[in-house]
């Protein structure tokens, strides 16, 4: 392996690792606050760009979908409507949620009529975003104070449901998306897609944003309080369900935007979310699902191992990656107590 190949592999590892890191950060955030391991996060990541395809003009996507409302919009609207039903005791809140449900359909209808690329981009994120907090309200909130295992089982069930729905909504094949920033820039020996810089930029901004959010804002501090001790947080007047919505919303937003930025580089399809999510999860585990910096480092480590294994022995790539991770995970599970701990 010479220097040129090493730098190419490093660039590849950085790109993949950054996406895993974004997913790992979201998973750690959600787990710390709610004890939910959000397996379907990978599905949210592909939902956003696939929805965007429905808002693209035919000459860009190669498909004529003009006027069709993407399935995700119906899903988001239905979930918001279900949420409104659960809140029927408070007329104001139920009304707002019902309005939100119609609003999502309205946005999707608007996008499907043909909008500029940048507007469709934001509409796609907005349409998919409510699915995150609505899943919390519909599926996790009713199982209040359940064990981590129960939450995990619900999350895995949701993952299968969302993946199946993804196939129904978008079909089995991949799609091509336009890059937000096309072209390549030469960095040393390696030409790097400009789109990848957007991914790095977003990762940096999210990390910075989360840091400021947790250290400066009252909401962030409330989330941290919930993460440290839910019972104590409730005693000091912090609503754990509120904290749940906020953490699910932030995680979904990060996943959606990561997906939107990554999509032009990978040609997304409904089935691609899971493996990305899984590797994000492994990275999160490397940080014990509690430490953000360790999770990010773990993500870069997973990305690096993957690139190296793909180069050395591509037939056994995933086997090598997971086999190398086993001892680390074993060591972590021996050391860390907080992982399975209940309140």
């Amino acid at each position, binding site marked *: 392996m010479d220097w040129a*190949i090493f730098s*190419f*592999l490093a*660039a*590849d590892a950085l*790109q*993949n690792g950054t996406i895993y890191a974004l997913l790992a950060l979201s998973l750690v955030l959600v787990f710390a606050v709610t004890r939910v391991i959000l397996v379907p996060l990978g599905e949210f990541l592909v939902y956003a760009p696939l929805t965007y395809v429905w808002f693209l003009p035919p000459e860009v996507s*190669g*498909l004529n979908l003009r006027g069709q409302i993407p399935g995700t919009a119906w899903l988001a609207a239905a979930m918001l409507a279900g949420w409104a039903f659960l809140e029927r005791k408070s007329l104001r809140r139920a009304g707002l949620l019902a309005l939100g449900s119609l609003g999502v359909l309205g946005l999707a209808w608007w996008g499907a009529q043909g909008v500029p690329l940048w507007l469709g981009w934001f509409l796609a994120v907005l349409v998919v975003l409510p699915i995150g907090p609505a899943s919390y309200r519909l599926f996790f909130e009713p199982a209040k104070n359940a064990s981590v295992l129960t939450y995990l089982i619900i999350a895995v069930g949701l993952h299968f449901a969302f993946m199946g729905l993804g*196939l129904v909504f978008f*079909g*089995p*094949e*991949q*799609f*091509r998306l336009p890059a937000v920033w096309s072209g*390549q820039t030469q960095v040393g020996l390696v*030409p790097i*897609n400009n789109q990848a810089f957007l991914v790095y930029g977003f990762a940096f901004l999210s990390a910075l944003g989360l840091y400021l959010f947790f250290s400066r804002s009252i909401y962030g501090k409330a989330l941290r309080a919930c993460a440290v001790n839910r019972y104590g947080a409730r005693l000091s007047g912090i609503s754990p369900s509120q904290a749940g919505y906020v953490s699910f919303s932030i995680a979904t937003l990060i996943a959606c935007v990561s997906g939107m930025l*990554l999509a032009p*580089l*990978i*040609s997304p*399809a409904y*089935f*691609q979310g*899971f*493996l*990305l999510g899984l590797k994000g999860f492994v990275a999160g585990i490397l940080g014990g699902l509690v430490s953000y910096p360790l999770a990010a480092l773990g993500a870069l480590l997973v990305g690096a191992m*993957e*690139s*190296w*294994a*793909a*180069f*050395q022995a*591509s*037939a056994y*790539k*995933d086997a090598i990656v997971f086999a190398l991770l086993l001892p680390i995970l074993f060591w972590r599970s021996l050391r860390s107590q907080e992982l399975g701990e209940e309140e």
Partner: protein
Amino acid sequence: MKRALIGLLTLGLGLGLAQQAPLKIGVVVSATGPAASLGIPERNTLLILEEQVNRRGGVAGRPVQFIILDDASDTTQAVRATRRLIQEDQVLAIIGTTTTPASLGMIDVVAEAGVPKISLAANLEIVFPVDEKRRWVFKTPQTEQQMSTPIVRDMAAAGVKTAAYIGFNDAYGEGWARAFEAAAREAGIQVVASERFARTDTSVTGQVLRILARNPDAVLIGGSGTAPVLPQRTLRERGYRGLIYQTHGVANPDFLRVGGDLLVGTRLPAGPVLVFDQLPPDFPNRQVATSYVQLYESRFGIGSYSTFGGHAYDAWAILRPALERALRREQTTNLAAFRRVLRDELEATRNVVGTHGIFNMSPTDHLGLRFNEAAVMVEIVKGPTGRLEWKLIRTFR
């Protein structure tokens, strides 16, 4: 009065047809899951055929019923569906399924029950070698070996000395790796790298770097559906300027849509039905291929056809005459004996012209295609309107 009489007569005829027990054929296809883009046209084709056959009076005066089950591209479900078709529906024969692993899984079940099966999957191992179990199994799609020969001949004609391979890390990719490496060795082309990737991968940079380091004259990408776009794009992005070959697994409109302009110049072997209107006038299966495409497009729209539906059409093309001959020899009520006779008649298939070639079965060959009629070389070009098109560049007759 006259009209009423005719009406009564046709009603009577229809009743007569309906009273005859239908000939039940079991079908397993992957209508959902990763192989759905292959399975859906297969299912559509059989639905059109069922309607057409029954409108024209059925087979030997009896209506035909296709009982179509979906295996969701999954081996376990394919095996379960096969059992159900045999035990509950008591089918005469089975067509299916779309994918190689699931087709292999079905062999034990059909052999045990003694039901003839026609697979729609590519791998040679499904029908070779013809042993105690595989004597019940036939198939219609070309094997990787038959598709490798045209690629290697085209490479040799283009002066290629070294080639690299990158394919799926599953039965499809492994089958192609073996077939291509064997054919290349025979033609004196050196295979300098053999890499694998997963259908679900989002990056193949590592594999592509390894290939670039060996600097081959040509690269063959062994995948199906739209996933093979990724290695091709990575190769071009990393500055590869040599020839790129794909397999017939990408001969679908989705591949062109996802890949876009970077696919121009890609070569692949394909069943002749893909370029049915560009075949030379004396090409033996031109007429069948053309009428199949017209039949399919009349229902599903211009440009909707794919080569995969052609395999289902060919399965019926060999099953129908075998059924007719078997019906003359044995009663369908005597189910086990009829299935045995039907198997013998399938093995006796001679000179059946299908969309993909001419079928001549024998006790040692349960596919019966020669690559000369079953494969042509196609290049992806930019058409006059700026759309990507398949262009016939070489036939092997």
